C-alpha cells in the first residue's frame, strides 16, 4: 500500500537548465501496494530485487518490501439505501462473518448509508463485534459521500487500510461527485475493492422511492476507476454467502500483497505521479498496483 507523501519534506532544489527548471523532489516515503498473481494464485515469494518500479517513467530504487505481517484497518461499507434494502438480514449475517475473518490485531469499522452516512460500528479491534443495529432507509443513496468518508482515514504507522464496499454503485444525493472521489483516492493510502451487489426488486412495495441528483454526465464508472487506481478492483457478487466468499478472497489476496517503499528521485514533487510496477523476470505474472498518487 502506498504511504502517501508522509511527512512530505519537499526539498526542492532547483537546478536550472537552459530550457526549463528541474525540480528535484525528495519525499520521505511513498508506499505502493502491489499484488502479484500467477493465474489466480498469489505469488508471495518475491524479493525487492525482483521488482522494477517507475515513477512518472523514472526508475526508482525500492528501499523496503513488506508482506503479510502488518495489521489491517478494514473499512466495510454496506449500502443500506432503498436500492439494496431487501437484503438487510443477509447483510447483518455477512458483517458478522466478515468481522470473524480478521485477526485480533486488525481493526474494523462498518459504514452504512441512509439519510446520512452512518458509522454502525466505529473503529474497534476485530473480534469484538456486538449486536448490529442496521436499518434500511429508502430514498437517497450516498455512495460517493460514504467513500469520501472512508478515504479520509490515516492508519497509524505500520498498518494498512483496506476499504471494501458492498454496493450496487448507484449514487443519489451525495454532495461529492465521482471525480472528487477519484481524486481523493489518489491522496489516500487506502486500497478500495468494490463488490458489486445488486438486489433489484427487493425494495418494499409501499416504501418511498429513490431520488437522485443530476448525473455526473460522463460515461465513466467512477467507482470502478477509483478501485483500480488504488490497486483494488471491482468484483461481481450477490448479497449473503457469495459476497462473504468474495470478501475472503479479497482479504487473502490483500494480506499476501507486497508493499514497496521508495523515496522518489528525479521527478517533480507536485501533481499526479503515474506509477508502474513490473516483475521483469516473470512477464507472465499479473501485477496489480496502485496506478499513481498526488504529490504535494
Amino acid at each position, binding site marked *: 500500500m502506498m504511504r502517501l507523501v508522509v511527512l512530505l519534506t519537499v526539498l526542492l532544489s532547483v537546478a536550472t537548465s537552459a530550457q526549463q527548471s528541474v525540480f528535484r523532489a525528495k519525499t520521505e516515503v511513498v508506499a505502493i501496494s502491489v499484488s502479484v498473481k500467477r493465474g489466480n494464485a498469489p505469488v508471495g515469494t518475491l524479493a525487492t530485487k525482483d521488482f522494477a518500479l517507475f515513477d512518472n517513467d523514472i526508475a526508482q530504487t525500492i528501499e523496503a518490501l513488506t508482506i503479510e505481517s502488518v495489521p489491517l484497518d478494514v473499512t466495510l461499507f454496506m449500502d443500506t439505501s432503498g436500492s439494496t434494502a431487501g437484503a438487510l438480514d443477509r447483510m447483518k449475517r455477512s458483517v458478522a462473518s466478515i468481522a470473524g475473518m480478521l485477526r485480533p490485531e486488525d481493526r474494523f469499522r462498518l459504514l452504512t448509508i441512509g439519510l446520512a452516512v452512518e458509522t454502525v460500528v*466505529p473503529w474497534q479491534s476485530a473480534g469484538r463485534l456486538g449486536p448490529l443495529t442496521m436499518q434500511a432507509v429508502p430514498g437517497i443513496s450516498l455512495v460517493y459521500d460514504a467513500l469520501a468518508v472512508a478515504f479520509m482515514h490515516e492508519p497509524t504507522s505500520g498498518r494498512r487500510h483496506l476499504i471494501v464496499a458492498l454496493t450496487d454503485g448507484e449514487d443519489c444525493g451525495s454532495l461529492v461527485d465521482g471525480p472528487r472521489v477519484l*481524486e481523493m483516492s489518489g491522496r489516500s493510502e487506502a486500497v478500495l475493492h468494490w463488490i458489486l451487489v445488486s438486489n433489484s426488486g427487493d425494495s418494499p412495495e409501499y416504501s418511498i422511492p429513490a431520488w437522485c441528483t443530476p448525473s455526473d454526465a460522463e460515461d465513466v*464508472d467512477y467507482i470502478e476507476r477509483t478501485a483500480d487506481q488504488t490497486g483494488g478492483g471491482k468484483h461481481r457478487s450477490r448479497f449473503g454467502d457469495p459476497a462473504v466468499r468474495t470478501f475472503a478472497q479479497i482479504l487473502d489476496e490483500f494480506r499476501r500483497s507486497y508493499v514497496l517503499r521508495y523515496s522518489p528521485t528525479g521527478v517533480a514533487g507536485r501533481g499526479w505521479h503515474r506509477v508502474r510496477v513490473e516483475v521483469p523476470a516473470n512477464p507472465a505474472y499479473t501485477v496489480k498496483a496502485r496506478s499513481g498518487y498526488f504529490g504535494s
Partner: protein
Amino acid sequence: MGAVDRNHRLLGRLAAIAALFACWSAAAAIAQSAALTAQLDAYLQGRYDDAVRQAASVADLGPFRLRWVQDAPAWIRADPAAVEVRRAAAAAFLLELTHARLESDWGRFADLIEFTCVDLRHGNPDRSFENAWHRASLALAGRARARLWLLGEYAVLPHQKPRRRPPGSKPDPNPQHLMHALERFPDDPTLQLGRIVAWTWGRDEEPMRNLRLRDDESWPMVRSGSPQREAVVALQPLVEDSTVGAEALVRIAQLQLSLAQPAAALVAAERVGRMTGGNNVRYLAHLLSARALELLNRPAEAAERYTAALELIPGAESATIGLTSLQFARDDRERALETVARLFENRPVLDPWRLVGYGSFMHWPQWRSELRAALPR
C-alpha cells in the same frame, strides 16, 4: 345411516369452527375499533405523541385502513356539537401517524389522506387549520416525491398552457391532492412553491450517478435540460415573496447547478444571504454557493461558504463532507482527517441537504408544530 351421522357431526363441527372464527373476527374488529377511538380521543385531548406512538406500533396496517374508513367518520359525528373540532383532530392525527410510518408505508396512507381531504373539504373546517393541514400533507408527500399524487398526470407549471387528456384515454386516476389545496388557497405562496417543486420531480428522469448513461434511454432528455429551465422560469415570480423568496432562490440555484450553470447558481444562492428564510434555507444557500464556487474553480471561497454553513448548523454532515473533501484534495490532510473523525460524534438530527430533494419535507418539524397549534379547540 352411520355414514350420514358422521357427515352431520362433521358439518356440525365445521359450523362451530366457522361460528368461532366469525366471533373471533368480530371481537378483533371491535377491539381494533375501540383502539382507534381511544387513539383519536387521546389526540383530541392533546396527548399527541402518545396517540401517534400507539397507533404506529401496529404491525399490520391492513385492519387499520379499514377501521379508518369505517370508524373515523363515526367518531367525528359522535359529538354533534364538536364535529369540526373532531374532524380537524382526526385529520391531523392521520398526518402525524403517516409521518411515523412514512419510510415504509407511504403507499398505505396516501389514499387515506385523500379520503380525509375529501371529508375535510366537504365540511366547514377552520381556515387556518385547513391551510396548515394542507401544508403538512404537502411536506409528507414531498418525502415520497409523489408528483402524480400531488399534481396528476397532465400537470403544467403556472406559466404553461393547460394539457388536455387525449380523447379516448382513461381518466387520470391520481387525486391531484395539491391542486385541491390550491383551489382552496390560491394565493398561498407555500403551496405555489410546492407545486413548482413537485413538478420537477422525475421530469429530468434524474438518472442515478455512476450509471453508464449511454445505455440509458433518458439520456437525451437529461441533456436537454428543458424541464429545469421551465421550472426556473416558473420560480422567478416567487423570489420577491417575503415568505418563500429565499427558498425559491435556493431551488433556482439547485436547478442551475443541474443545468451545469454554476455562475447562475452562484448568483441565485448569494441573493439568499440578504433575505430571511430560516436556518435550513440559509444553510442550503451557503452549500449551493460552495458547490458552485468549486465548479468555478474558486476553492478558497468554496471553503469559506462551507464554513459559513457549518456556523449555521454546527456538525452538519453534508457541509462537513464538502469542506473536508475539499481540504483533503488540497493537501490540507491533517485538518480534514481531524474534522471528519469528529463527524459522527455530535451530528445534528436534520441535515437540510439530505432532505432538499424531498420538497418541503425539511419543514415538517415546524409545520407539524403549526398544525397542532392551529387545531380548533
